[in-house]
């Protein structure tokens, strides 16, 4: 296990060290290794995610200079077989109280249950599982990353608005692909999309050389507007485009896709975060970078607004009605109090351009139009309150 503690101070502190209140933020990252056929494609940058966290800590510390506060980041990068509970305990022993998680949904639950009743709050940066916002929600987990339901609702609104209502759903063989497909079906029911056909992609591991032969027949004799692909880790989805029987659009996990961030997103001040990021890391900011940036900024905001590093006060603020995060999405981001999911607009992107931002105009909601996406209060099965 590799545990690297480090401290970043953006500017020299204005106050003597002993007057300064410390806020320690932990980061646990444990993601599974990509399957062999993807290992030689786009290798994600080694600092994907944590780079956004570092920018965020710097931002917090710049503000902290005026508040007599300092923010420290303690990280734990785990191999596939490392024990995340052990990493959590090590962070807790260092008086870390807020932990940003880049782990699978099961691990989120394992850590949350282990920490139940203690002064520890988890901020989920990458697990999209709907169940974590529904029956498996936890009072000590707040979700920064949107749920699959938010993503598929964001996409569904756009397709319905374009009157592309007939969807051909193509699902990969992984469990998470099935979860994405299920979420697409729920979104179809919610917004009036129609699944006119459904197939599973079972052509083996690497379609790069065989797709041209396989895709036409696979998509033949079907009457649909959009092919929706459920291939979360990107095994075959990219190979469908331009190879369908008829000239047809692709959306879902490839083609037109929902995301929290994109390199072409420049509205609402995001150009500033983009250029700050690029200057420092010489690469474009990715969705996962944003998803680690946002929770650390949220914790920074809690410390600033409460003028405190007291855990209970900060959590009360994060969970209270005054909390709002300026997250470069044009509206304040707030938490849903029925499952602690961050409300947020969702970008619809293609690889080299931002296409649209959901919620789409015309989808109305009595409380917040952002609640047209994801599990709304009335549908919640979460019992944390």
């Amino acid at each position, binding site marked *: 296990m590799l545990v690297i503690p480090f401290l970043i101070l953006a500017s020299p502190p204005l106050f003597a060290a002993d007057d300064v209140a410390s806020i320690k933020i932990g980061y646990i990252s444990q993601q599974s290794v990509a399957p062999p056929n993807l290992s030689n494609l786009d290798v994600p940058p080694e600092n994907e995610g944590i780079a956004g966290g570092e920018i965020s800590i710097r931002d917090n510390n710049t503000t902290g200079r*005026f508040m007599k506060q300092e923010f420290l980041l303690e990280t734990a990068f785990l191999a596939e077989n490392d024990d995340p509970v052990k990493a959590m305990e090590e962070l807790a022993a260092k008086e870390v109280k807020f932990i940003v998680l880049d782990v699978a949904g099961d691990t989120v639950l394992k850590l949350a249950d282990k920490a139940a009743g203690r002064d520890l709050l988890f901020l989920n940066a990458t697990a999209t599982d709907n169940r974590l916002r529904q029956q498996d929600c936890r009072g000590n987990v707040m979700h920064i990353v949107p749920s699959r339901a938010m993503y598929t609702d964001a996409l569904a609104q756009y397709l319905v608005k374009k009157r592309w209502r007939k969807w051909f759903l193509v699902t990969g063989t992984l469990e998470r692909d099935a979860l994405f497909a299920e979420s697409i079906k729920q979104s179809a029911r919610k917004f009036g999309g129609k699944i006119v056909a459904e197939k599973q992609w079972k052509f083996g591991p690497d379609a790069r050389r065989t797709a041209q032969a396989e895709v036409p027949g696979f998509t033949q004799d079907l009457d649909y507007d959009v092919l929706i692909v459920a291939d979360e880790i990107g095994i075959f989805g990219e190979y469908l485009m331009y190879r369908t029987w008829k000239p047809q659009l692709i959306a879902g996990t490839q083609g037109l896709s929902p995301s929290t961030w994109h390199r072409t997103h420049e509205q609402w001040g995001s150009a500033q975060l983009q250029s700050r990021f690029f200057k420092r890391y010489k690469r474009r900011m990715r969705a996962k970078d944003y998803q680690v940036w946002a929770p650390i900024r949220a914790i920074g905001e809690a410390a600033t607004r409460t003028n405190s590093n007291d855990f209970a006060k900060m959590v009360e603020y994060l969970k209270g009605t005054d909390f709002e995060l300026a997250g470069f999405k044009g509206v304040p981001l707030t938490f849903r109090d029925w499952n602690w999911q961050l409300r947020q607009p969702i970008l619809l992107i293609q690889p080299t351009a931002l296409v649209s931002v959901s919620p789409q105009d015309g989808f109305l909601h009595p409380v917040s139009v952002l609640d047209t996406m994801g599990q709304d209060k009335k549908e919640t099965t979460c019992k944390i309150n």
Partner: protein
Amino acid sequence: MGNGAILRTLGVAASLALTVVPADAYKIYVSNEKDNTVTVINSDGFKVEQTLDVGQRPRGITMTKDGKYLLVCASDDDAVQVFDAVTLKLIKTLPSGPDPELFILHPTGNPLYIANEDDNLVTVVDINTNKVLAEVPVGVEPEGMGISPDGKVLVNTSETTNMAHFIDTTTYELTDNVLVDSRPRYAQFSHDGSQLWVSSEIGGTVAIIDPATRKIIKKLTFEVPGVTPEALQPVGVKVTQDGALAFIALGPANRVAVVNAKTFEIMKYLLVGQRVWQLAFSPDQKHLFSTNGVSNDISVIDVERLKVIKSIRTGRFPWGVVTSQE
């Protein structure tokens, strides 16, 4: 106004090109963020006179106090460009620090204080000698810039730190930091220096701060029937010379709020173009102009009647606006 002579000279110069120009004609300059241009509008009939090519991503725009030069923040060029206000020729480029967004001149006309969004700095530049006099570290994403009428106090707002930073203009030290709501965009002193107005775009509020005590004396919130609260995003603020009225641009709400600056009562919402950000008065304060980024125009507001009387087409994403005698 003290610089009337210069203004009249400007008017004469302009009249060489046009036929009849009223003595009080002035120009309106609008920076177009996505076109890399400045639209030049003549107040006589509110007609577009010229479109000037400028540096990349022009945002903040102002005039020198003598009315001779137009200053433009070319954000993506990391420079402030200086144009001759009459010939519209590029005279020189001022060092600005990276990504200049908004700036303000000292009441005496020099120096220029520039917010550098990318570097958490306010850069102070002597506009005559092109020298950087100081760099003042502030919060994250500095943007709004206000200066007290006596020139002693500079205020910068930082969009991610969410503070109004008070800077002593002689020592360049921070004297106070006032926490305001999310994404403070603009800082404007009243002309008598008794109020500082700070708009918070994402917070949806405008804080009115007493500069003497640095306490927030009033926080304005807005409400427009049929507009979602999230869309009420205050940005540009202007207070009339007599301190009676304040105008607040409300971004995607497509409204300019009119506020009684004495009682802080919101009197009216004026419907303007889409995504309204910055505001500027005409020299006689009879008109107010608003930049409407998404509808690519500026709205002309009649200040006395509180009515929108005209819209004028600009380039793409009009951002800042200034008039030639302001």
